[in-house]
């Protein structure tokens, strides 16, 4: 836990600024101090997501991540964290829609955007990886063909250079025996390997934002740690804004300098990871931490 406090945000002055943009209004728990300093790579404010029958699923959530920053989103299932992420990608499930708030991705205002506008943004400015990587790849096609397809569609790499770019991309993600992997299919590769391939696909067009929604949840702990390291490195190297969704506080603690705690479609607590984990302000956060302390491995080692 001690190294947590040493992680500092890329903009050291960010935490010092606490001026309200509207002058005098009380800061909500999700207010992001950094947004005043540098333009956010991805930003949603007062996002409201409603079902077709009018019931609200997300009640005015604000999320903002600057380039090179990692934001952790934690909360129980059904707390709206995945819906919020899907809204940032413009891929809400059928029947749900954004009924309030604004969304900006990499400087593009997507508030009320249509499918065509979203398409221009997905893959090129914002990418995402999810749980269960195997289901995001066609089992009947070699990995290489699918990666090349993504490169050609999102990064507009010419057909002839696609294979070379695919090789570079996987190589960059620390995959050994790249040529072998490119020839193989889903059934041949481990979950960790597949998730790396999907990260490569998500980053094919060098987007500004990467959303990792429970991307390491189904993997074993060592592979999970390797992938988290990889995400951390990519963030530093590419200035990637990372949104890491997890129900696992340890995962968030490892990668993110800021964390937002979701519950029932609201952000109940937000702030520097070290602060939230050390001195949780909201009862729900305390409960989450207590659950971790009660059922986590530390208890058995103590």
């Amino acid at each position: 836990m001690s190294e947590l406090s040493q992680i500092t945000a890329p903009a050291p002055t960010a935490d010092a600024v606490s001026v309200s943009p509207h002058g005098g209004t009380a800061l909500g728990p999700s207010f992001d101090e950094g947004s005043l300093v540098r333009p956010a790579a991805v930003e949603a404010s007062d996002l409201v997501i409603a079902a077709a029958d009018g019931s609200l699923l997300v009640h005015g959530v604000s999320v903002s991540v600057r380039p090179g920053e990692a934001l952790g989103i934690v909360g129980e299932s059904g707390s709206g964290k995945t819906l919020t992420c899907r809204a940032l990608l413009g891929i809400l499930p059928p029947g749900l829609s954004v009924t309030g708030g604004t969304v900006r991705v990499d400087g593009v205002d997507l508030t009320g955007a249509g499918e065509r506008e979203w398409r221009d943004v997905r893959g090129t400015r914002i990418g995402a990886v999810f749980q269960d990587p195997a289901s995001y790849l066609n089992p009947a096609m070699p990995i290489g063909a699918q990666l090349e397809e993504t490169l050609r569609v999102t990064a507009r790499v010419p057909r002839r250079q696609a294979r070379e770019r695919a090789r570079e991309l996987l190589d960059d993600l620390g995959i050994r025996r790249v040529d072998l992997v490119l020839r193989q299919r889903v059934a041949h590769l481990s979950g960790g390997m597949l998730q790396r391939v999907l990260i490569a696909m998500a980053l094919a067009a060098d987007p500004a934002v990467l959303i990792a929604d429970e991307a390491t949840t189904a993997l074993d702990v060592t592979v999970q740690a390797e992938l988290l390291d990889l995400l951390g490195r990519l963030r530093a190297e590419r200035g990637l804004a990372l949104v890491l969704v997890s129900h696992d506080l340890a995962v968030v603690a490892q990668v993110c300098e800021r964390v937002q705690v979701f519950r029932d479609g609201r952000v109940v607590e937000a702030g520097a990871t070290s602060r939230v984990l050390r001195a949780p302000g909201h009862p729900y956060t305390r409960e989450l931490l207590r659950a971790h302390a009660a059922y986590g491995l530390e208890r058995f080692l103590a």
Partner: protein
Amino acid sequence: MNTVSRLWRSGWTVRLALLILLAVATLAVAGPAIAPQDPLAQDAASALQEPSWAHLLGTDYLGRDVLSRLFAGAPASLLSALAAAAIGLVLGALPGALSAFVPRVGEWLALRVVDALLALPFILFAIVFAALLGNGLPQATLAIGILVAPGFFRIARAATLRVRDSPYIDAATYLGASAWWVLSRHVWRQVAPNLVVAAVSALGGALLAVASLTFLGIGVQPPAPTWGGMLSSDLGYLGQRPWGPLAPALAIVVTVGALNVVADAARDVLGADAPARQKEAVRV
């Protein structure tokens, strides 16, 4: 090619079936050319003979050489079965795959048409079809093709439905892939193995159907030899030549059997849902 070599290696029955199909295919192409005698030449003096060196499979009631008729009748029997299966594949598979992507109304309509076709009695349909459009082999082939189509429709639709809601299809759609792109690039590969298997077994069914129809005199008129037609003419002389129908019957049964064996093996080899086998595991 890879698939054929894997089929070949999957056991001696499959090997035998493939060899039989190769021989049958040769007959379908070159049957009339390699027939030892004129299949239509009648010789009343030597009618209903036992097999001999002059007539390896004997002669029929008009003294025609049975072996020559078997060879010469192969193209009509086999090629029309092939055409019928192909017609069924085209009429069934593409609409079947598309039916997973059209609006509900279209889907409902397509399914009801298929249900109606499935309910039609096969022989009656073919007879009515021939009565309406003329009694010829092309008409009979088309009738069989139409009746084989629902099978392909259902298989293609089921396989498409299974992959349609996969996250990787969603992901492709979110990146702007059209329904056609999804169909031709992602769905097709998953559906194709199932269709290959279905096509091989449909070929067997179509062959039987062609034989049944020609047996009944639909499709091909008497002087011209067909396997089904030979059966029906031999049947009248069972008293004099009880083993007479054996040759054409065996030709049909062995071919259909070989097709079924190959279809079964192809299903195992192509393994519709897990196309490639584990060769070498790669770890992170």
